[in-house]
């Protein structure tokens, strides 16, 4: 199958995105903000279709909208007493706008399917370059804030007392999640970013205790699921996103229901 350029491109793109998604998702799961990541992807859908409507590239719209939404969410902080509800309302509103934009720009429909469900087999060299830049930006930002991010996540009261700017950290983190979501949506689509961002990271957290081993495992699982998913899709002709989502679910449930030796001590 590697005689085809589109397969090689798919493997490269999926590999980049999977590493970024696995690592970013690890912190998203740790902070209990997976729903925020889900919402960002839906907001990105409105951005992408809106960008198409005014003649911009969908990726630019996707990145722009998720980034603005991520920063806004971070700055709102804990002021929204019930964040899940507020995020849920914004999420459906964003999808609604996405559909409205599609209504006015019907020729965009095929691209809309790709946005919603992903189209990794159509990735070209320009897209690989864009994904590399997005991925690099995400990982650099994460590396800069990782230490205070972990402190603020595990012990917010103490972190605040020690001088960690909680809201700033939270805002930068959601901004980098927005970049990762935009990249991830190119592979599995906005509706299925959970498959690469949350599934492998959540499984890794259940399998190992250490930070670095957890991060490496999350990234490795994401890459394995993405590549295996493409391989299965190539041989079965099933949609790639389905195969990745299926593998992600299988790995997560296998990890979640793994028998543990927790009462051994």
């Amino acid at each position, binding site marked *: 199958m590697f005689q085809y350029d589109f397969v090689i491109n798919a493997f490269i793109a999926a590999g980049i995105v999977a590493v970024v998604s696995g690592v970013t998702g690890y912190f998203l799961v*740790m902070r209990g903000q997976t729903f925020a990541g889900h919402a960002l992807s839906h907001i990105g859908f409105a951005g992408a279709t809106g960008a198409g409507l005014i003649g911009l590239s969908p990726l630019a719209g996707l990145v722009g909208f998720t980034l603005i939404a991520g920063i806004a969410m971070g700055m709102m902080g804990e002021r929204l007493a019930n964040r899940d509800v507020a995020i849920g309302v914004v999420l459906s509103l964003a999808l609604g706008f996405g559909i409205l934009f599609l209504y006015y720009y019907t020729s965009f429909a095929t691209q809309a399917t790709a946005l919603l469900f992903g189209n990794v087999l159509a990735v070209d060299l320009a897209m690989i370059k864009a994904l590399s830049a997005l991925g690099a930006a995400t990982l650099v930002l994460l590396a800069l804030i*990782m230490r205070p991010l972990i402190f603020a996540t595990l012990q917010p009261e103490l972190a*605040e*007392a020690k001088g960690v700017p909680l809201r700033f950290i939270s805002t930068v983190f959601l901004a980098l999640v927005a970049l990762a979501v935009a990249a991830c949506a190119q592979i599995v689509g906005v509706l299925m970013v959970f498959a690469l961002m949350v599934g492998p990271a959540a499984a890794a957290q259940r399998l190992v205790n250490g930070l670095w081993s957890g991060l490496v495992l999350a990234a490795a699982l994401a890459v394995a699921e993405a590549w295996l998913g493409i391989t299965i899709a190539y041989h079965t002709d099933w949609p790639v996103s389905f195969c990745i989502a299926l593998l992600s679910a299988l790995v997560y449930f296998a990890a979640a229901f793994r028998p543990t030796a927790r*009462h051994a001590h």
Partner: protein
Amino acid sequence: MTQHPIISLDHATVAIGGRAVLRDVSFAIAPGEFIGVLGPNGAGKTTLMRALLGLVPASVGTLRVFGAPPARGNAAIGYLPQLRTVLPDLRVRGLDYIASSLHGERWGLPSLSAADRDAIEHTLDAVGAADLARRPLSEMSGGERQRLLLAQALMGNPKLLLLDEPLISLDARHQEVVIGVVRRIARERGITVLFSAHELNQLLGAIDKVLYLGNSHAALGTVDEVVTAPVLSTLYDTEIEVVRAAGHIFVMSRGRDVERDAHMHDHGHGHEHHGHHH
């Protein structure tokens, strides 16, 4: 007072959201004192500690810690925040949990030097919790978590310990263990301790003085000076009787034990799991 106080409040008012939690409060705490911080719910025990950490400013008057206005990030203060049931199934090891707080305010990637690791293990050992280093947080009982947090508060050899309800959700035996460990380490290292609690009786043998908060006021002194009907009646803003019996002190309002009521009210739901010691 011959020594300079570690903490001094001079006609200080501390307000949160426009409500004066402490109003025109003055007291001074000398080095090495073990202070039990008591008072009804909402009396400002947590707010006082947050003010000392520089998280809540005094709106009127002065508040000084080590002779200077409070500032965030003071390495001489060890802080144990009130336990909240967050991140229940987080599989973070005790060692990594404490490590996250070491220089956690610096930018960049986390790292743990061999010296840091030794310091953490040494401190865990000092509170009798060496085995918690390798155990994930999600598998610790309430008592084990409190000891882990206590060890963390002791990292970096602080001169002042602010312990916010460290006995919460612990059974009587674990409460005694925590009080004993704090008392011993504080004496050995000459640390000043503010130890907030719901009930006075467990602390009676350990504390030098009691800081009773209530009704925006504060009273600092020995138990005999402060835990009296006139002082507490002012702080609770209701008529209080103090009954001493069999080495215990009961603070009663109209025949009810106010501390016990507050305690029951606070813990009527959401019991922590104990006793994973098979």
